[in-house]
């Protein structure tokens, strides 16, 4: 980021502060760097220039490629000087300049010479610089020296080589792995930091070899580690091993637990903390295992050092989520932390207390928090508000005091995010606790009387429109809503008009009054407000007509079927013409999220801002979509739609996934295509399906996609006929054919001529599970008893070696495509046996129930006993046939 250094107003600033870098300019410094080429070097002066260069880089100034190269070449001249201080600066600037591979060659010989120097400082630093700038081929040349350096008697040199090894493991793992003998020797070093670096490198070299890692950890845990940092590493490795072994060991003593526990008595606090944290994070930790860790953390809570208090309360806060009871012993210490100077600690203490507190302590806590809230920043307040929300869900009886607290803080000063957190919390409470509804709605009404945030006002008005009409006395909200029409900006006014209309629509008694109010709105200065008011008045006027009634109800209360993003794109693409914009033409397919979004860890929005729940279209939507095409309308009732199957790799030019729609005697493939090339427009997009490996299917018709512009998904369909009611299976290979037209990036116009092209997609299979709808039953036992025991078919299968029992259970459930009942899809982490209860509806609407009992022996061989009951015995046989094939 080139950021021009502002030349300060010298006369004024000079008085205030002195800086050797005042008024420094890149050009001048670069000029100064020419002195490096001077045959008579002045080391002190050169050091100063390097410092200036480093200062510029550090302030965010960037050098162009040419400038950097020039500086780099001048700097290499400085290797002639014997001055150690200057040499040290030279090393530093070379690292900062990060020269290109073609330039590196200039310094390698100098650096290699330094690497074998008698001066330790030269050796250590030359290694660090070299390893930072060279590539694999050069590395093999200096490998010999690096191996020597690892076991150098000077710890600084040894550490330099080891840390460089850690960095280079990422780029040249095969070379670094050859050093493991030397690294192993360094682990035994008496220098603490060398031991730490060696251990880190050794573990990374061997991390894929579980046996070697556990042997390494096994030896070291017997107490050969001196450095606290290395001990922390050891604890991390140990807990990783425990995690990996988790499923294998039977109940009883957890291996290595003793080691972790002994670390709680280590003399270094960082080790104690690391061990305590490791224990609290063990899978399925028992309260007996937890106790010693909690005890040391409790001691930390009253430490004079803020970092210790913070670390302890942060860890306890996490423990409180899973084991609230274990933390209650610390409650007294925690309460005293509410007044801690460090507000981060205080907030963590409060939220922990809110998690561990019992019903009786809520009121007392709230009192303490009220005092505390006034002097912390918004971001802390949000954390507290969220904790209170979950507390309220936990103790619904206490909603009164919690709601009061929320409404109080809602009235106080605060930023948008904070206010939104409060409003969201109130909304959640209103939804979860019916008793709190009327009270909560009134609080929200009062809030919008004096709310500076348009977004919150409109959201609350919308919420009022949904909840308000169903309360005992809807009329009391009208005043608040109508006040908005007088006092607010256009956006809020429009929202208020909608809310008024909703009240009028649902509560018949209010209709005349609301009509009067709406009539006043048609003189509003804003056209959107006028439009809405006019529309609603019109709907109210058309009383008798049932048809409009349904439409308007749909308009007011229904949700938009298409995703908002698609709606927006379609509207943008629409050009004003004779033909009106057709809402149905908006693609209903949800666009796959760009990869970047997935990475972003968004907090799950709750309350008002929550987006529509599932991104995948529901069964109903598919049914409606298919029946809208005359070609498919005759196929009868849709039996099942599969979830989308990807037919292309991620990030290819065209992304296609397919949904299989199963009918009684037809199958329709819906290909959802997305064109990800901005320069192209695809036309006449069709999928050619080769069904030669699916004998029972014959192609009936296909429905190509006329046009597929960039980034707006479209669908092509292919329909097949199959024998009625028969669960025919087969494999289909697919080819996408289309005409490509270049799109001019500037005008957005496509060229007239296109080129025919095709694109190979992955194969698609119709499998038995496609004929099974996963319908759950509420009471499996009853359902099972009610089925004809005669229909039961039992058989045993060997499933071979599996990684875990859970994996086998999932595999069987997936093959059958059935619904797990009564929570039997979760397998206890170290269980040796498990029973799954599955239910489903087979094609022909035959109800099927399955009891599958799994067992695992010591070799991880899994066997399964499968009992099937169905309304039709032939279906039971079919299920067994699926399992024996799958």
């Amino acid at each position, binding site marked *: 980021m080139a950021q021009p250094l502002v030349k300060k107003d010298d006369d004024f600033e000079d008085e205030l502060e002195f800086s050797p870098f005042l008024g420094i300019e890149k050009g001048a410094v670069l000029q100064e760097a020419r002195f490096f080429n001077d045959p008579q070097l002045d080391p002190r002066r050169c050091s100063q220039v390097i410092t200036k260069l480093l200062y510029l880089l550090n302030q965010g100034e960037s050098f162009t490629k040419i400038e950097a190269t020039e500086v780099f070449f001048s700097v290499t001249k400085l290797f002639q000087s014997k001055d150690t201080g200057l040499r040290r600066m030279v090393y530093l600037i070379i690292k900062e300049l990060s020269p290109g591979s073609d330039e590196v060659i200039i310094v390698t010989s100098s650096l290699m010479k330094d690497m074998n120097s008698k001066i330790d400082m030269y050796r250590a630093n030359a290694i660090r610089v070299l390893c930072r700038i060279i590539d694999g081929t050069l590395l093999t040349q200096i490998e010999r020296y690096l191996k020597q350096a690892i076991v150098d008697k000077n710890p600084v040199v040894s550490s330099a080589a080891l840390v460089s090894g850690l*960095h280079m493991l990422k780029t040249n793992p095969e070379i670094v792995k050859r050093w493991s003998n030397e690294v192993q020797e360094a682990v035994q070093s008496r220098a603490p930091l060398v031991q730490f670096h060696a251990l880190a490198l050794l573990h990374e070299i061997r991390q894929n070899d579980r046996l070697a890692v556990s042997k390494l950890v096994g030896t070291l845990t017997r107490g050969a580690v001196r450095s606290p940092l290395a001990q922390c590493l050891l604890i991390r490795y140990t807990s990783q091993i425990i995690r990996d072994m988790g499923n294998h060991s039977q109940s009883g003593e957890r291996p290595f637990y003793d080691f972790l526990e002994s670390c709680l008595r280590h003399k270094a606090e960082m080790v104690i903390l690391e061990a305590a944290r490791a224990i609290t994070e063990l899978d399925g930790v028992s309260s007996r295992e937890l106790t010693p860790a909690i005890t040391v953390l409790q001691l930390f809570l009253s430490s004079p050092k*803020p970092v210790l208090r913070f670390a302890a309360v942060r860890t306890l806060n996490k423990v409180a989520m899973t084991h609230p009871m274990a933390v209650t012993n610390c409650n007294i210490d925690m309460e005293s932390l509410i007044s801690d100077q460090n507000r*981060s600690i205080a907030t963590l203490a409060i939220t922990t207390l809110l998690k561990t507190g019992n019903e009786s302590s809520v009121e007392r806590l709230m009192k303490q928090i009220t005092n505390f809230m006034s002097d912390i920043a918004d971001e802390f307040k949000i954390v507290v508000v969220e904790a209170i929300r979950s507390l309220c869900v936990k103790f619904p009886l206490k909603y009164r005091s919690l709601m009061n607290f929320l409404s109080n803080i809602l009235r106080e000063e605060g930023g948008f995010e904070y206010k939104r957190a409060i409003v969201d919390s109130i909304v959640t409470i209103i939804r979860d606790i019916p008793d709190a509804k009327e009270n909560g709605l009134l609080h929200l009404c009062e809030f919008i009387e004096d709310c500076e945030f348009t977004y919150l006002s409109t959201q609350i008005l919308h919420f009022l429109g949904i909840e308000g009409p169903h309360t005992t006395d809807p009329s009391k909200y009208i005043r608040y809503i109508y006040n908005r029409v007088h006092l607010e900006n256009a956006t809020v006014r429009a929202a208020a008009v909608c809310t008024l209309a909703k009240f009028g629509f649902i509560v018949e008694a209010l209709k005349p009054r609301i009509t009067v109010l709406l009539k006043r709105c048609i003189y509003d200065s804003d056209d959107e407000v006028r439009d809405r008011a006019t529309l609603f008045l019109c709907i109210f006027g058309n009383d008798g007509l049932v048809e409009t009634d349904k439409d308007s109800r749909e308009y007011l209360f229904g949700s938009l079927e298409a995703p908002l993003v698609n709606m927006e794109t379609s509207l943008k693409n629409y050009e004003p013409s004779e033909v009106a914009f057709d809402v149905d033409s908006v693609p209903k397919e949800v666009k796959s999220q760009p990869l970047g979004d997935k990475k972003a860890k968004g907090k799950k929005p709750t309350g008002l801002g929550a987006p529509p729940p599932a991104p995948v279209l529901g069964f109903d939507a598919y049914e409606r979509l298919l029946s809208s095409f005359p070609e498919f309308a005759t196929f009868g009732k849709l039996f099942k739609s599969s979830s989308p199957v990807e037919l292309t790799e991620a990030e290819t030019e065209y992304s296609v996934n397919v949904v299989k729609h199963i009918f009684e005697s037809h199958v329709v493939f819906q290909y959802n295509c997305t064109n990800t090339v901005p320069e192209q427009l695809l036309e006449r997009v069709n999928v050619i399906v080769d069904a030669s490996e699916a004998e029972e299917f014959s192609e009936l018709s296909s429905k190509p996609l006329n046009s597929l512009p960039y980034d707006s998904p479209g669908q092509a369909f292919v329909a097949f006929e199959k024998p009625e009611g028969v669960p025919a299976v087969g494999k289909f290979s697919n080819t996408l054919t289309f005409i490509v037209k270049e799109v001019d990036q500037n005008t957005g116009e496509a060229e007239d001529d296109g080129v025919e092209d095709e694109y190979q997609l992955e194969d698609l299979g119709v499998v038995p599970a496609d004929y099974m709808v996963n319908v759950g039953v509420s009471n499996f036992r009853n359902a099972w008893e009610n089925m004809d025991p005669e229909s039961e078919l039992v058989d045993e299968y060997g499933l071979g070696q599996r990684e875990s029992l859970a994996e086998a259970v999932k595999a069987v459930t997936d093959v059958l495509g059935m619904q797990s009942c009564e929570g039997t899809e979760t397998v206890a982490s170290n269980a040796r046996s498990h029973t799954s209860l599955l239910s489903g509806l087979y094609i022909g609407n035959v109800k099927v129930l399955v009891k599958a009992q799994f067992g695992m022996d010591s070799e991880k061989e899994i066997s399964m006993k499968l009992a099937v009951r169905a309304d039709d015995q032939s279906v039971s046989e079919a299920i067994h046939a699926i399992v024996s094939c799958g």
Partner: protein
Amino acid sequence: MELHPKVKNILLLDSEGKRIAAKYYTDDWPTNTAKEAFEKTVFSKTKKTNARTEVEVTALENNIIVYKFVQDLHFYVTGGEEENELILASVLQGLFDAVNLLLRGNVDKREALDNLDLIFLCFDEIIDGGIVLETDANVIAEKAGINSFDPNAPLSEQTISQALATAREHLTRSLMK
């Protein structure tokens, strides 16, 4: 998976939150604008706290930040939210004490700017690409504080001047107490 402790950045800011020296070891803040924004948030969040006697700590944007202030200088060390705070604190303490040794007890902005080379070297000796290289202040100061003398210069002279410097330092310290 890398399990070793990682430091995301080291910052040295002045009393207005302006950068004196900073070193970033991860791509969490890819541009200078992002870096400056981060420094600004960190500074405004911590400036009112009293971190002059003990190392203080706070959490920000899924990071743990430990910090300590002296005069008009603000030292910060940032790590990920899973990081052991005490390891970060030991890095900070190492940096803090090493700078104190190198600046001979006169730790303020002016002195830091005058000896910025030493500060840069100090950073370089504490963390290497995010990995903790050394936390012992004496070792760091020794490695960073190489005197700009020709190694061929008479050794005796060097040691005498060093001894004098140490003596002076001890004297000023005891006087300041």
